[in-house]
């Protein structure tokens, strides 16, 4: 039951739409004259709400799809019911009602573009400009074989949204504990405060990385250049190294064919 309450609290978060919804359903129970509307907008959501708090129901749902129990709350048409009830409440005072209800709704919610995850789009792809910049430096020319590159954690969500011609030794699945993934020593290195240059180049070579991308703030113990990783580009926050220990796949194939 505690878990269900936690899910309910998390769903309702910082706003008061849940309270408004409860008030709206209660209001419609008493004033809605249309029996069909009452059944669909009051009775069914109330039953769903009751079911949501039943532990056996929670256990049953979890056996089908774990971790998404909050989606049961999607079945209650909160927006529709609140908006409908509000329109009924304001009666014929439409102008004043519109203003007052709008203020209540705005104050009860949270602006969709607030929070750290929202920002002004930097480009048409809606990914950071620096990702585009780095990818443009290293992506293969048209018709050439794909390249491999290791990226810092801050970039791995975005790289392949821009181009799938760049492949990565580890991806988002490594970031989420509990997800099915193979442990990757190269990823572990990126997590360290001080990255050993020798280990980094060795692991990158083991994973056939043609490029190594590092954040400028990351501290490197040793010289990457001395180990065959040459700096080929920089952006505001990143260094781009070409790992010369790993030839490009098509160059290697061409050399083998010539031999």
């Amino acid at each position, binding site marked *: 039951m505690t878990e269900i309450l936690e899910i309910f609290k998390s*769903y309702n978060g910082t706003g*008061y739409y849940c309270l408004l919804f409860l008030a709206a359903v209660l209001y419609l129970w008493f004033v809605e004259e249309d029996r069909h509307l009452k059944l669909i907008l009051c*009775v069914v959501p109330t039953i769903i709400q009751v079911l949501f708090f039943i532990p056996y129901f929670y256990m049953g749902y979890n056996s089908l799809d774990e971790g998404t129990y909050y989606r049961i709350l999607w*079945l209650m048409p909160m*927006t529709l019911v609140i908006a409908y009830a509000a329109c009924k409440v304001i009666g014929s005072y439409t102008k004043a009602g519109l203003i007052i209800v709008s203020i209540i709704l705005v104050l009860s919610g949270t602006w969709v573009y607030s929070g750290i*995850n929202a920002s002004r789009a930097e480009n048409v*792809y809606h990914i950071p400009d620096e990702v585009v910049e780095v990818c443009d430096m290293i992506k293969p020319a048209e018709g050439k074989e794909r390249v491999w590159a290791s990226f810092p954690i801050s970039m791995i969500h975005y790289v392949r*949204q821009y181009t799938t011609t760049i492949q990565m030794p580890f991806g988002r699945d490594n970031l989420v504990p509990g997800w099915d993934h193979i442990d990757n020593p190269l990823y572990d290195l990126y997590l360290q405060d001080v990255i050993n240059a020798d280990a980094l180049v060795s692991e990158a070579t083991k994973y056939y990385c043609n490029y190594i991308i590092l954040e400028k703030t990351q501290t490197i113990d040793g010289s990457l250049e001395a180990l065959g990783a040459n700096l080929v580009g920089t952006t505001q926050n990143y260094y781009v190294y070409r790992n010369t220990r790993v030839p490009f796949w098509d160059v290697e194939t061409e050399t083998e064919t010539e031999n």
Partner: protein
Amino acid sequence: MIVSIFLLILILVIMPFCVGLVPAYFIDRRKRRISLVYVFGMIVSLAIFQLIAVPVIINKGDGFRLIITLFLIITGVLSVVGIALVAIEVRKYGTPINRTDEISVPKTKEEKIYWIIFIALVVIQILLSCFMQYFDGDDAYYVVESLLTNETDTLYRIKPYTGLSTGMDLRHAMASMPVWIAYIARISGIHSTIVSHIVVPIVMLPLLYMIYYQCGRILFRKERKKLPIFMIFVWIMYMFGNVSIYTNATFMMTRTWQGKAMLANLVLLTVIWILLALFETERLVKEWRLGYYIILFFTNILAAMCSTASVFLVAMLLGLSGIVLGIAKKNIQIPLKLMITCTPLAIYGAMFILI
């Protein structure tokens, strides 16, 4: 660029509208409206895409072109059928619609002002969705899957996170929304990520409001001037619905292109709308219910396209509503008919459990 925009209009506006004329033929002429036909068309088109895509994804790893070809042929034929049906009605009645609906009387000045405010707000919302970005970790899967499909012609055989080859991820593969986005990208020649982050919201946000509008027309059939006010309230709750990362409004506004967002908003709302419409129809002309049942059937296929796991949600909503309505109206036919429309959900649900 102009060609791309024209192609987008063709495949996302004109063709779905023409497809929508077919199911619209089976509903009361007084209820037919441009927005309703378009909503019908989008639902049917997306459901057809799902019906084509899943078998191809399972059987032919490089079958993206086959999906596009089959989809264009079928929707093309349906579009022609839709136009032909309209032509028949025009010949028969002189017009495909009947403007005697009680809500179609001229609007008052106040009402017009509210509608202008609402339309302006929606335009602002669409512009914001284009000029604002929102980080969502799941994009690393869904958006990349669309891009991979478009760039490699392969279907769920490459791991989006890294690019390594992998066995088919059937659980995700059964929900073909990313492949539909890849289809839009392929036809229009626009990068899949741009389609996901910009084109899809431009289409889906108006579609969402069109469905709310259909609901509103039923709820406010006697108080029409409140309909734009209702729509403004809905808009506010979407723009200020980010009270947590889990709400349907947050999903709609921050990850419109993901199937989950479409399920939480478009699909579940459509189910509610059809439940409302079926009983409104009951009051009017009973024989016109068939069109709504057809759309409900296709909505259930669309649910599977959005998220395989979530077919249980739609089935639960319909099952529960059917039982409640059946008991209240002492009519066993209501839950039975609703259950029949759930057949696609049962099939996808069984596949999901067996997998």
